[in-house]
């Protein structure tokens, strides 16, 4: 890849989506999927910083067993804000709304998504939802955790449950509309010759994700309405004092929120398939298996929700059924990992930054997935449920997996998005720092969990301190790792060397058009005559 010292940035004279028009209005009223992707990029980065600040205070606080920084109730609000923001306003939109928005039309040879104005609308809906949640934080916060368990959330909490939940409710429509847009676009707007089995796996992953978004999100929306009904009008739904059933909430909540994990991680898997093939210059091993495993995950993901409830008081038989179903959903993920390994086998592997993120993803996602087997296990889950083991497990999936995939994808397509290259050495260094910082932060939490430290504890017994301090030390390394890309990516927009249309020599339609692409994506509609990842041609 071209080095930083190459050539001084040239002034781009060609018209592209970035310089086609100027002014705030040209951005806020744009229907160009690429500009909307950038609007999302800015918004989710903003929310990531807020969620990250909450995480920073949490880890600093836990350095001392008696709590180093804040009151327990403030601590409760911090982890609630961290969870709500990171899940609903960062991870769920991250890859689909930024990279998916930018790339789905480019990858299938279309000029835009099927419904460009609905695409803009979905960004506005997201922003309004985010503002509600920000209001709730500024007005004093919410203390229910991101899980809003009843009857605590519906009756007992006296924090801003409604405003926060309303924010989540609203942003859900953004997610539904994005999913709908992708489904229609992928069905109807593929370029001539681009059959289903020639599609990049990124598209398959986004298609599977979109199905979950469209089918799952309405359920969490309804659940939030039910909480509001009970909280505001005292309609007995979840609180037994009003005649309700608290476990009903958990069923409804996890019916969405377990598949939501796959909304976060499936797109990352799609990204990894693109990166692995490009940086080992090989077609994917077992294309159909990788593609259909995304669909299998989307379907099976809807049938495992009650594994969050093994100790909640569900019947023994329900426990047995949901345990075995949870084991089944592990298989398609394993298939993906094995196929990726077979893909890099006898490849021509380069260590560019996106590839480091992809390999990091495979390692961390494997650990996250394998520790999921512990939690799906009825015998062991009883002990580790609601402990730091769970916290460690889902961070391996959501941060080690989803976030690594997002960063890998962002680094891979950044030259396409911005038209510029970033400093390669810094990028590789940051990937390494993030990998090490991540493991130092979250690996000790597996041990803490098996020792029995419950999650969501503002104070804890002194024998857990050493592991907590290690975790906090790792978090500071991780924070540095995240700060570095933020700096050099912004820097590169102005000072980075010009990338050219295809700096990685990658396959895929998005690389056949200039960087940054023109507003209409392609001069003329491309015709596809080969399979995806035809690196051997």
């Amino acid at each position, binding site marked *: 890849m071209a080095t930083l010292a190459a050539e001084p940035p040239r002034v781009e004279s060609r018209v592209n989506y970035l310089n086609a028009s100027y002014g705030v209005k040209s951005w806020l009223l744009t229907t160009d999927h690429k500009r909307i992707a950038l609007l999302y990029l800015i918004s989710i980065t903003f929310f990531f910083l807020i969620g990250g600040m909450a995480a920073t205070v949490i880890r600093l606080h836990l350095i001392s067993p008696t709590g180093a920084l804040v009151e327990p109730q403030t601590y409760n609000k911090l982890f609630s804000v961290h969870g709500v923001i990171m899940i609903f306003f960062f991870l769920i939109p991250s890859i689909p709304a930024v990279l998916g928005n930018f790339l789905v039309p480019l990858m299938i040879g279309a000029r835009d998504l099927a419904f460009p104005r609905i695409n803009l609308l979905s960004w506005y809906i997201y922003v309004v939802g985010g503002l509600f949640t920000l209001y709730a934080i500024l007005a004093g916060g919410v203390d229910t955790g991101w899980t809003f368990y009843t009857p605590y959330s519906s009756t007992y909490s006296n924090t801003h449950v409604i405003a926060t939940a309303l924010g989540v409710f609203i942003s859900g429509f953004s997610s539904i509309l994005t999913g709908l847009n992708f489904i229609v676009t992928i069905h109807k707007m593929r370029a001539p010759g681009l059959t289903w089995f020639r599609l990049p796996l990124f598209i398959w992953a986004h298609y599977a994700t979109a199905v979950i978004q469209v089918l799952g999100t309405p359920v969490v929306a309804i659940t939030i309405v039910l909480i509001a009904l009970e909280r505001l009008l005292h309609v007995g739904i979840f609180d*037994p004092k009003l005649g309700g059933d608290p476990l009903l909430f958990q069923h409804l909540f996890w019916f969405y929120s377990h598949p939501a994990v796959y909304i976060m991680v499936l797109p990352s898997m799609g990204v990894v398939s693109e990166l692995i093939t490009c940086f080992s210059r090989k077609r994917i091993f077992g294309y159909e298996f990788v593609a259909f495993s995304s669909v299998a995950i989307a379907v099976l993901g809807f049938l495992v929700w009650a594994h969050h409830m093994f100790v909640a008081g569900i019947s023994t038989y329900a426990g047995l059924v949901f345990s075995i179903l949870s084991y089944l959903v592990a298989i398609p993920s394993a298939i993906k990992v*094995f196929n990726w390994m077979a893909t890099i086998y006898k490849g021509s592997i380069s260590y560019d930054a996106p590839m480091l993120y992809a390999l990091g993803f495979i390692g961390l996602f494997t650990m996250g997935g394998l520790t999921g087997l512990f939690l799906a296990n009825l015998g*062991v889950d009883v002990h580790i449920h609601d402990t730091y083991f769970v916290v460690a497990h889902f961070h391996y999936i959501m941060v080690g997996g989803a976030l690594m995939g997002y960063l890998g994808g962002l680094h891979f397509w950044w030259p396409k998005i911005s038209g510029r290259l970033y400093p390669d050495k810094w990028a590789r260094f940051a990937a390494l720092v993030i990998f090490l910082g991540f493991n130092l932060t979250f690996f000790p939490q597996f041990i803490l969990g098996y*020792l029995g430290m419950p999650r969501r504890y503002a104070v804890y017994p002194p024998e857990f301190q050493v592991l907590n301090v290690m975790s906090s030390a790792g978090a500071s390394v991780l924070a540095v790792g995240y700060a570095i890309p933020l700096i050099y990516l912004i820097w590169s927009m102005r000072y980075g060397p010009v990338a050219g249309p295809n700096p990685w020599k990658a396959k895929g339609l998005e690389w056949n058009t200039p960087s940054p692409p023109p507003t209409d994506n392609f001069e003329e509609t491309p015709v596809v005559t080969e399979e995806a990842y035809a690196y051997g041609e």
Partner: protein
Amino acid sequence: MEPAGFPLFPEQASTIAGGVDRLFFFLVLVAGFFSLLIFVLIFVFAVKYRRRSEDEKPKPIAGSHTLEIAWSVIPLLITFVMFGWGATLYVRNSRPPVNAVEVFVVGKQWMWKLQHSEGQREIDELHVPVGRPVKLTMTSEDVIHDFFIPAFRVKKDVVPGRYTTIWFQATKIGRYHLFCAQYCGAQHSAMTGWVYVMKPVDYEKWLSGGGGESMESSGEKLFSRFGCVNCHHADGSGRGPSLVGVFGKPVQLESGETVMADEAYIRESILAPNAKIVKGYPAIMPTFQGQASEEQLLQLIAYVKSLRMAERMTK
């Protein structure tokens, strides 16, 4: 005092703990093997097949059905073993032995209130004898809590409006952490306590130390005070069904269904009497919702249970 320092593995202090840990180590072994396999493969491939020149063109490999089947079926079989092993433990641990010492737990923000059937009460502490099974029947006055004793490897949510149970048999005399593991509000992390495992003689001594009355006699008093006794005559001549010998047996309902007379049924019959009407009796019982506290409900249940014993004795 608690052993200071830096433990990496929790104490094993119940009959359940060893079995859970053996399964845990099996899972660690499998997970460790596959993690190591993937990490080593990544490392070896990344070094061995590193790009040596810019114009390299590796030979494309489309895939292999044999491999795909192998790496689907083998993991599937391994997960079935995991499932079966875990399920066996779960089912076994969900059935308390009949001769268990009974303790009743009421969780509320942010304390644990416990009462032994002999009457002894305690708060945020649980005293149990070593070597004897102990069964906890638990409910909550407000939000969901969770009763978690890491050293025993037991945990269960404590849910308002219903009873959940756990049981364990302690194997080691000592003092162990009790945690609330389900987030329950501001002082969640302060809703902790200690479990004291004692020699049986010490436990008996401790039990008799309180001087209170047994739950069953408290329940009997409540049975008169709430006026239950006016309708539920022992000989069945009252306006309500006799409760003698009812507990633990199926009850015929007006709807034609039968229901097992367990703790949950008795509780529901006191709080929502019209939910299930006993066959042959009019639906005239008033609700005691808001009058009987969770503790009083447990005492009433203890009394109704004791009527089963009374019947046996008369036989």
